[in-house]
C-alpha cells in the first residue's frame, strides 16, 4: 500500500484511540450520547454497503437491527447465554437472514426492491409481535449491566470495523464490482461479475453489522419491544444520515450520523415539541439542496450559493 493509504489508516487509528479515551474526559451524559451516535453511524455505514456502493436502496435495514436485538435478547433472557455469545449470535442470525431474504428480493429493482425490503421489515415486526417467546407485545427485559463503558467500547469497536469494511470496499476488486453493479448492472454481468452473489454478500454484510448494533442496543437499553426496534423511522434516519454525509463514500455516513445526531439531540432538548417538525424540514432541505452530501460539498470547495442553486436545478422535471 502506498504512503497515502498508510497515513489514512494511521489517522483513522488515531481517531479511534482518541475516542477511546473520551470517557475519561467527557461527562456521563456525553458517553450516552456517543453510544447512540456510534450506533446510528454503524447503521448508516452498514446501509452504505448495499445502498451506497451497490446502489440498491434498501428501506428495510431496520429489520436486521431488530433481528439482532431480538436474537441477543432472547438468548440472554430465555436461554441464559452470556452476552459474549449472545451478541455475535445476533449478528450472525441477522446476516443469515439478510442472505436468505436477499436471494429472492435482490432480483427486484428500484422501487420494488425498496418496498419489498420495507415490507420485510414490517413483516418481521409483526412476527415478533405474535410470538410468545419473543415476549410478544410486552417485550423483553434484560438484566442490568452497571458498566456503561462496556457498551461504549463495543459500539466503538463495531463502528471501527464497519468503517474499515467500507474502506476496504473502496479499495478492493469486490468493492469495484459493487460499484459496477450500481452504475450498470447488465454491463457488469456481461463483464463476468457474478452479480447475484456480489449483491447477496453486500446485503449480508450490511445485515451483519446492523444486527451487531441491535444486539448491543438491546443490552444497553435493557428493554426492547417490537415497535422500538423495528421502527420505519430508524431506517429513514439512517438513510438521511448516509445521504447527508454522502452515499458511496467511506466517511460520509459517519459524518452524516455525527452532524444529524447532534442536531437531533439539540432539537429534542431545546425545542421539545417542535423537534420533529424541524427534522422534517431538514430532510426536505437536504434532499433539495445537497443530495450528494457533505462529502461532495467539501470536495466542491465548501459553502457556495451557486453549489446549492445548481443542486436545486439538477434533478427537476
Amino acid at each position, binding site marked *: 500500500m502506498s504512503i497515502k493509504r498508510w*497515513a*489514512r489508516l494511521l*489517522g483513522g487509528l488515531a*481517531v479511534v484511540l482518541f475516542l477511546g479515551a473520551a470517557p475519561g474526559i*467527557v*461527562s*456521563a*451524559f*456525553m458517553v*450516552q*450520547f456517543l453510544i*447512540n451516535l456510534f450506533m446510528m453511524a454503524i447503521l448508516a455505514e452498514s446501509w452504505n454497503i448495499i445502498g451506497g456502493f451497490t446502489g440498491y436502496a434498501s428501506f428495510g435495514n431496520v429489520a436486521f437491527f431488530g433481528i439482532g436485538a431480538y436474537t441477543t435478547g432472547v438468548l440472554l433472557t430465555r436461554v441464559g447465554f452470556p452476552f459474549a455469545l449472545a451478541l455475535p449470535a445476533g449478528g450472525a442470525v441477522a446476516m443469515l437472514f439478510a442472505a436468505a431474504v436477499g436471494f429472492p428480493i435482490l432480483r427486484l429493482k428500484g422501487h420494488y426492491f425498496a418496498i419489498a425490503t420495507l415490507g420485510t421489515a414490517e413483516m418481521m415486526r*409483526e412476527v415478533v*409481535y405474535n410470538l410468545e417467546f419473543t415476549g*410478544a*407485545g*410486552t*417485550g423483553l*427485559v434484560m438484566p*442490568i449491566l*452497571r458498566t456503561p463503558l462496556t457498551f461504549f467500547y463495543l459500539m466503538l469497536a463495531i463502528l471501527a470495523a464497519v468503517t474499515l469494511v467500507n474502506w476496504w470496499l473502496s479499495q478492493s476488486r469486490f468493492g469495484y464490482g459493487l460499484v459496477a453493479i450500481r452504475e450498470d448492472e447488465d454491463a457488469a454481468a456481461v463483464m463476468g461479475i457474478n452479480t447475484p452473489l456480489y449483491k447477496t454478500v453486500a446485503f449480508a454484510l450490511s445485515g451483519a453489522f446492523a444486527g451487531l448494533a441491535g444486539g448491543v442496543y438491546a443490552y444497553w*437499553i*435493557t*428493554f426492547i*419491544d417490537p415497535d*422500538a426496534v423495528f421502527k420505519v423511522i430508524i431506517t429513514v434516519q439512517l438513510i438521511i444520515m448516509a445521504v447527508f454525509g454522502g452515499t458511496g463514500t467511506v*466517511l460520509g455516513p*459517519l*459524518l452524516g450520523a*455525527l*452532524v444529524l445526531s*447532534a442536531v437531533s*439531540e*439539540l432539537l*429534542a*432538548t431545546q425545542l*421539545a*415539541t417542535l*423537534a*420533529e417538525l424541524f427534522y422534517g424540514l431538514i430532510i426536505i432541505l437536504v434532499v433539495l439542496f445537497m443530495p450528494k452530501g457533505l*462529502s461532495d460539498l*467539501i*470536495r466542491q470547495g465548501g459553502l457556495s450559493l451557486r453549489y446549492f442553486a445548481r443542486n436545486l436545478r439538477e434533478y427537476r422535471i
Partner: protein
Amino acid sequence: MKRCGFGRRWLGLAVVGLVVTATTAWAADTIVLGTAISQTGKYAREGKFYVDAYQMTVDAINKAGGVKVGGKTYTLELKMYDDQSDPNLCVRLFTRLVTSDKVNFLLGPYSSGITIPASSVSEKYEIPMIQGGGASEKIFDRGYKYIFGTLPKAEFYFQSAIEAATKMNPPVKTAALLYSNEAFDRSVAEGSRQWLKEQKIEKVYDEEYQPATQDFTSILAVIKSRNPDLILLAGHVENSLNFIRQAQASDISPKMWVFTVGPPTADFRKTLGKAAEYVYGVTPWLEDMEVGGEIFRSAKEFGKQFRERFGYEADYHVASGAADVLAYKFAIEKANSLDPKRVRDALASLDVETLYGRVKFDPTGQIAMGQVLIQIQDGKLVPVYVAGKMVGKPLYPMPKWGQRK
C-alpha cells in the same frame, strides 16, 4: 479529503461537546423534579394529564410553603422533556436528567411500556423515580429498589367488575375477554382470567389484538356469534372508541361491558355522546370520593382547582400524577434530607392520606388500591361497586341499540 474529513470530525465533536455538556445551574434553594413524558406521539393525550397534574401540584406545594429540609425552605421546580412516546428517547432523556441536568429526583413517564426501560435508569443511578402511569407487574418484579408507582396492579383492574357481574340481576354467566398486545393490557387479561374462574363465569372468547387495530368488525362478528353476557376490553382509548362505535354499527349489545382507561376520562364521554351510556369502567379515584390530605384537602377541591386552571375534568391519571409529586414532599420532609438513598427509604415506608387516597407502597414499590366500578349514566360517572359491596344502582342489563331512548 482526508484532512478535511478528520479536521471536521474533531471540530464537530468539540462543538457538539461544548453545546451538549453545558449543564444548567439550579438556584440554591430549589429541589428539581425531572421527567421525560409523552407530549407528542401516540401517548400525547394521556401524557398531558400528567404534565398538567405535575405542574399544578408543584405550584400548590410552593404556594403552601414549599418543602422544609433541615430548617430551610425549598421550592419545587419541574424539568420536563418530551419523550415523543418513544422508549429509546425516553431512556436517553432520563439519563440526561440525571447526569447532565443533575435533577434531584425523578417523576415517571406514561405507559408501562416506556416506564419499564426508564426505571432501569433510575435504578442504575440510584435515584428514586415515582411514576403514576404504569401498572404492569413487569415494572415491579425485577427487584428494583428505586421505582415506585401510584397505579394499582394491572392484574386487579377488572376484579371488582367481574365480582359485581355475578351480583347483577340476572347474574352474568358468560364473558368475552379481548385485550391489546401490550404489557399493561396483557397483565389485565391474565388477572381477569383468574377472576373469571373464581367467579365461575364461563369464558366464551379470549383473544389478543394488535394495539394499532382500528377495525374490529371481524372480532365483533365472532363475539356476536358467541353471545356473551359480559364483554371485557383491555386496550388503549382509541381501541375502546372504535370497538363501541363498530359494535353499534354491527348491532351488538351485551348485558354489560367494561373498558380500561377510557370511561373515566371526560373526552371519552364527549366523543361517544349517547353511545357512552351504560358503559362501565374502573378507576381507583373519583372526584367525589371522601379522601384528602395536606395541600389538597379533598378530592373535590383538587378537581375543582384543576378544572378551573386547565379547562377539563381531572381523572385518575391526573390524581395519580399529583400523588407522585406529593409523595416526594412528604418523603423528603420525613427523611429531612435530599440524599437520594434516604429519600428512597422514606418513600418505602411512607403511609399518608392524600387527595388520591392512601399512599403506601408495597415492598416491590407499587401502591395497593382498590378499583371502583363505575357506570356512565346520563353523562355522569356513577360508582356502582367497590370493596365488595354494591354502592350504587347499575342500569342493567344494557338495552339493545334500537331500544335506547
